[in-house]
């Protein structure tokens, strides 16, 4: 049996927010390449915090976080953009740009990396096609339904073909059927080798897919 290098590795990680609140404590786990992992727990358990540590949006107060072998606590802030370019991020509060249309929102990650326009446009359309929004590329995000906005976030997250996809409550405001289609999308990305971490408290979904679960309770691993 060969051990593969984990893409994400938490070792005794703690996170104390300014003000003293300890959102995570003693969290240790590894994620292998191509794994599909649920991060679960009650509201306030620390799910979002955990994902933010992976994307270097927050820094760990103790322990080490490794992503693709890079120690994030030793990472210079100048290097953070390059870390994030290999991550597809889907946020709990979406963070779309509401003054740009659907197409331009998806183009943003490619503009940031300086992709040639023609190639970038082709990729953006491919991503929009994958989430079924190709016909809406000229629409403003505000004109989309909640589920469509969520899919737009997914398109923006995958357009750079990241190795790791992090999604924070991607189905939170959606009905069961819609949630299902979105989960199918994540499954299909996972099947082509993308490592997927999804934070959710939607127990029904977890029952259905039964992949690996990292459960948090009051900032600690519950299993």
């Amino acid at each position: 049996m060969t051990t593969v290098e984990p893409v994400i590795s938490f070792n005794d990680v703690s996170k104390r927010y300014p003000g003293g609140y300890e959102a995570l404590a003693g969290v240790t786990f590894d994620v292998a390449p191509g794994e599909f992992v649920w991060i679960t727990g009650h509201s306030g358990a620390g799910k979002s915090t955990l994902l933010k540590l992976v994307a270097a949006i927050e820094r760990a107060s103790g322990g080490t976080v490794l992503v693709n072998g890079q120690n994030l606590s030793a990472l210079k802030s100048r290097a953070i953009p390059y870390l994030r370019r290999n991550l597809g991020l889907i946020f709990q509060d979406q963070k779309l740009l509401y003054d740009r249309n659907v197409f331009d929102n998806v183009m943003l990650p490619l503009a940031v990396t300086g992709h040639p326009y023609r190639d970038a446009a082709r990729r953006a359309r491919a991503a929009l096609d994958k989430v079924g929004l190709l016909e809406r590329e000229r629409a403003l995000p505000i004109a989309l339904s909640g589920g469509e906005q969520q899919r737009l976030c997914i398109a923006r997250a995958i357009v750079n073909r990241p190795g790791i996809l992090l999604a924070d409550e991607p189905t939170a405001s959606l009905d069961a059927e819609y949630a299902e289609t979105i989960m199918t999308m994540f499954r299909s990305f996972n099947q082509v080798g993308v490592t997927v971490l999804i934070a959710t408290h939607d127990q029904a979904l977890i029952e259905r897919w039964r992949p690996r679960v990292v459960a948090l309770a009051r900032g600690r691993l519950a299993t």
Partner: protein
Amino acid sequence: MKTWTRHHLLSLRQGVARLFAAPLATLANIGVIGIVLALPLGAYGLLVNLQAFSGSLPTEPQISIFLAPGKGTSDHAALENRLKSASGVKTVRYVSRESALAGLKRSPGMAEVIASLRDNPLPDAFVVTLADGDADAADRLEHEFRTLPGVAHVQVDSAWVRRLDTLLRLGRTAVLLLCTLLGFSLVAVTFNTIRLQVLTQREEIEVSKLIGATDAFIRRPFFYFGSLLGACGGITALGVVFLGFRLLNRDLGQLGALYGVDASLRFLPLADSMAVVIFTATLSWLGTYISVSRHLHSVEPR
């Protein structure tokens, strides 16, 4: 290299788009910068013109010695010898009252005035030029000549040219001072404008950081925005000064025509005008730099 060009083109487009996104605010900003800078720029333009004018004047000191009326030619000859032997004198020229009147008649507008006179009011005179342009020597000789017999009045003709030169130098210092002060205010105006820009672009900055934009990528449009603002302000200032000179030239043209001279103001040369635009763009760039360095990292994604 290609990526670099693409990034800059994109940033330029974004910078321009942000200028047009709030056209009224942009116009107000450009207006403020333009009008504030028109002040020292106009003063500088006037100064350049005055300098050209003063440069065309003879600066070597001349002393005119007007003689008391009723002296004979023998007195004149004696006086001429005394003048010639004074130290520091280069040439001595005699101007009789008749030739002085004839010269005056040739000046435009004077002929009628002189024709109306019953007799010649002008005195005989000597015009002395000095060997060197030293002001002290001129003063010493002025005193010496004043005591000579038969001399009614002595005048150092070049004194006002030198005074003009001194004044011009003073003016130049004043303009420089004004430029420095208003340069600071230009930096301050851009600083503030960029601060507001950062606030309005908050979401875009945050999202860009989250999807892997480098600081340089985020700053670049601001630099284009700020520098363009400064350049447009500089061009506006040039426009204001240009219009001002046009207006002045209309009046000056009439005045000049009365005296038969070309009294029009020349606009700043192209090189100077370009320097002005580069200067304002650079100052705005500086204001942007300070502002962006201070305010951009207050926008951290959460």
